[in-house]
């Protein structure tokens, strides 16, 4: 466990050694504020729901940009060799990488908290949906990061890792959305597709609902992709 945190800490601090980390933080803060102030003013609802519903789309491009380097960079620079010849298990490596990326992602969400405080200062918002919305963001972000770490362990090319991640996420969001509305499909298939659709699942979070089904769905998605990433990394020892 200690080693997992060691790897996570290195991952997180390294994002701040390069300007990329600050750039992403700045741009995200700017974007979130813009989304927020579009629906902020007298007579408008004192909630973050509109912001959240936009944010969930932003994650599709944002999270892969953070996760793409995790394993790919180790593979391309060769640092994977000293890492994998140190007494750390493949699970510790993957968990460390994922936790490090999640740490950055959670840091990224701090502007949202500041915006919530702005709401608190100017009016009287309902904090319930704000927290469930944030929880949903963390869960969905966690799934995207797990997909990203998995894609990153496929290839030493960060661009490919990015594209593969975006592709898988789009299958889980856009594709399921459009196919779920295709009337020629049997109802069962449409229901299944809607069930998989992450954005549809997120809507309930931003409304203020915590559905056990959604939490289990996102949690098992995270577990599945992290497991696949561990297996991929393990397979490198066998080639």
């Amino acid at each position, binding site marked *: 466990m200690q080693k997992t945190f060691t790897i996570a800490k290195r991952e997180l601090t390294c994002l701040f050694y390069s300007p990329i980390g600050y750039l992403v933080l700045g741009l995200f803060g700017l974007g979130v504020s813009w989304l927020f102030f579009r629906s902020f003013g007298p007579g408008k609802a004192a909630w973050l729901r509109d912001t959240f519903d936009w944010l969930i789309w932003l994650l599709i491009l944002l999270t892969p940009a953070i996760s793409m380097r995790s394993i790919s960079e180790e593979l391309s620079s060769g640092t994977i060799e000293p*890492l994998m*010849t140190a*007494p750390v298990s493949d699970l510790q490596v993957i968990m460390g990488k994922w936790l490090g990326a999640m740490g950055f992602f959670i840091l990224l969400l701090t502007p949202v908290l500041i915006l919530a405080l702005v709401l608190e200062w100017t009016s009287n918002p309902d904090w319930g949906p704000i927290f469930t919305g944030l929880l949903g963001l963390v869960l969905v972000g966690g799934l995207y990061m797990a997909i990203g770490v998995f894609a990153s362990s496929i290839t030493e090319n960060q661009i490919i890792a990015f594209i593969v991640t975006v592709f898988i996420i789009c299958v889980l969001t856009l594709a399921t959305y459009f196919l779920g509305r295709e009337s020629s499909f049997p109802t069962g298939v449409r229901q299944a597709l809607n069930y998989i659709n992450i954005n549809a699942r997120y809507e309930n979070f931003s409304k203020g609902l915590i559905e056990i089904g959604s939490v289990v769905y996102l949690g098992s998605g995270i577990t599945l992709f992290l497991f696949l990433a561990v297996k991929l990394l393990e397979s490198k020892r066998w080639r």
Partner: protein
Amino acid sequence: MIDVQRLVKWYGPTKAVDDLTFHIPKGQIVGFLGPNGAGKSTTLRILTGYLPPTSGRATIDGHDVLTDSLNVRRKIGYMPESTPLYGEMRVEEYLHYRGKLYDMPRTLRNQRIDMLCDRCGLTKVRRRTIGHLSKGNRQRVGLAAALLHDPPVLILDEPTAGMDPNQIGHVRQFISELSGQHTIILSTHILPEVEKTADRVIIIAGGRIVAQGTPDELRKSVAGQGRVVLEVKAEPAAVNNVLRQVPGVNEVEARAVNGWCHAVVTPAAGKDVREPLATTLHRNNWIVRELRHETASLEQFFVQITDHQRVSAAPAAEREPEPTPV
């Protein structure tokens, strides 16, 4: 300490390591020598558990590298070829990170890092970013990282590549001092490096062991053992005739160089012909300006045996020079 049995590694259709068997006892420094692409790095990577062997078995201190990898990794300090490091980290920070991966408590880490920075000449660059260091300094960071947890087995893949002669000297001395309590296997394609530090040399080419032994043993097995080179003021033909009659002389090659006769005398196996040669030269009243015994260097041996390997491995077509187009 290190035991390798019939190790074979295929990369797709190419055989990188071909039936390698050797044993390294505790406390020995072994030089792993071979031309580029001989399978040195592959063998070392198998020993560290980074690559699996296609067949065969390797154990380190009784732990199988394949089935007991974590225990093997605790025992070894590995410095990979070209020393990949995190360029954005500071030297000290990187060493602490490595130490944590080996479960070293903070006080021990501080103590070891201080000691190693001092020994590896890193004190001045401790606070510098690794990415800004010179190649030689990066190598030294890699070496310090490999030694950090005081492993009983050290596996160094070309540890002195990219260093200047001064640094090479220091590292060589450092490695020699580590012998005894550490078992060290270091690969290189530079011969003097192992000639001076290693207790034993294993020469591989084309994935096979082509020779092994102490540097002295290897030197002795060099064909032709040694020869005597002399320069006298005389006619080459006369020198040739006279020297051939000296007992123990096998062959003489004499030629004129700027009015002097330069002769190379090859003695029969195991004979020292310097004394009879000197007597003969004196008797003929030739002025001698040089008479020296040339021992074959390990270098010649290395070139001879690895070259032979390459020639015998190459297909016939490659051996013939291509006809030059008119």
